[in-house]
């Protein structure tokens, strides 16, 4: 039974990783062919870094992701704190509002925003599809995730420490910065990181809201896959994969180390 489940897990992981491994191998293939190995080369990487369209798109994606992460974190953190002190009815209403972009199929969110921008542009001449519309859309789908990662931290927080700070003569705004913000910081950071990656990776919503002037990297990748050509795309995938692998391994090791420390502490206590 044990070995059987091991073999099964290996097969599933093989299924998940086979395409990625093939892609990495063929990013070094000295031929345009995607099936025949013709020898080792790094020319696709050189071509990738010489491709101005891809580099521009990458830069644009990063700028939008950073701005979307910062703005959605500010809106989301304020909202989470505000929601906490609201009456239940209003809060439930706001939370269901918060759920809409997460539950709705992305394509519907995409086309609804596109229609909004089209209507606004036709009537007022504002919000021409481009950088602004993509950024507004990204903030819209990031805010809900920020709120959901901060809410649990607020719930865990002891409300009396904020009041205690005020009782001890700290003005409310300062007490807020000194007491509440540090308490919910882990939630804020998780939310911001989530917003950043969601924005960086988004294709569907950007596709409908970007127009031709602000094509993010996924949108450019999509137009590349439609033409089915250059192995540059394999090189790009390999680089992105290695970056993600590196980041996740670091995060994972930190978690393992932290949980080992926790266990040590508990043993000392026990």
């Amino acid at each position: 039974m044990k070995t059987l489940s091991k073999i099964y897990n290996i097969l599933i992981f093989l299924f998940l990783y086979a395409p990625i491994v093939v892609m990495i191998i063929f990013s070094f293939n000295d031929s345009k062919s995607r099936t025949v190995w013709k020898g080792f080369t790094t020319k696709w990487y050189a071509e990738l870094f010489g491709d101005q369209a891809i580099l521009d798109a990458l830069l644009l994606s990063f700028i939008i992701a950073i701005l979307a992460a910062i703005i959605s974190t500010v809106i989301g953190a304020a909202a989470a704190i505000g929601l906490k002190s609201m009456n239940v009815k209003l809060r439930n209403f706001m939370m269901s509002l918060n759920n809409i972009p997460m539950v709705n199929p992305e394509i519907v969110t995409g086309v609804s925003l596109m229609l909004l921008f089209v209507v606004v542009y036709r009537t007022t001449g504002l919000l021409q599809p481009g950088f602004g519309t993509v950024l507004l859309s990204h903030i819209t789908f990031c805010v809900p995730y920020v709120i959901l990662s901060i809410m649990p931290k607020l719930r865990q927080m002891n409300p009396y420490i904020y009041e205690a700070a005020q009782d001890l003569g700290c003005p409310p705004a300062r007490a807020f910065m000194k007491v509440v913000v540090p308490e919910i910081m882990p939630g804020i950071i998780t939310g911001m990181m989530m917003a950043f990656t969601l924005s960086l990776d988004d294709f569907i919503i950007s596709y409908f809201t970007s127009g031709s002037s602000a094509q993010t990297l996924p949108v450019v990748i999509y137009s590349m896959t439609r033409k089915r050509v250059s192995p540059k795309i394999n090189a790009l995938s390999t680089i992105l994969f290695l970056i993600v692998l590196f980041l996740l391994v670091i995060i994972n090791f930190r978690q393992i180390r932290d949980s080992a420390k926790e266990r040590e502490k508990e043993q000392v206590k026990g």
Partner: protein
Amino acid sequence: MAKKKNSWLAAPFGVWMAFFTLIPLGVVVYFALTDSAGAFTFDNLLGIGQHAGTLLRSIWLGAIATVLCLILGYPVAYSISRAKGVSQQTMVMLIMLPQWMNFLLRTYAWMTLLENNGLINKFLGLIGIGPLSMINTSGAVVLGMVYNFLPFMILPLYSVMTKIDKHTIEAAQDLGANGLNVFRRVILPLSVPGIITGITMVFVPAVSTFVISKLLGGGKDMLIGDLIEMLFAGTAVNYNVGSALSLVLMILIVVCMAVMNKFDDGEETGALIA
């Protein structure tokens, strides 16, 4: 309480959501119920009938992919939830890792594997089978869906399963339940919330996809997502019909989720009583 003062902090969020979530959905409804001149009409919604085949095919392929994800993912989630410390964390990381790579690139990788002279057919040729035509079939589309969304099934299942109290399982064993009965009477009922979350997390993106069907299905058998994409950004722009289709897709998914949630409540209380 002094806390009440803080509720104004949610105001920017409320305004933002009104502008960029509620009003856009209102605009979709408006376009769905008007013709190109702006006059009120039901024609767009009534015209959906001619796309019934596309709609049904999307639901059918999405449902197959969801069931496959559940069948394939359940044992993996279970064995991860039973693994110890470091190996558990590593396995979760390995499940998440491909997810962090752009899904267009992952789907593109399958395109090169499934081609008529692709690697799988090359391999099959070596052992004397094929070539099979795999790309541009419904099967390839389902495969793409399963591949892209399998982690969405495994992760919620895993997180529910790790919360199952070990003592409950031990109690069942002490009371004489064999492996199958422990699974059927304890583990399965307690993992229902994870199954529900997993199903919605796979079904919603699967049923509304347009990228997977374009890349792996060759655009022959259109899905509802392809149709919507075509009507908004493609060759046959018609915002009114496109909005009607989007509205139908949205309602369809809300109905599915409502049914699933009913099922969830019933099962949970049922499990408690039994």
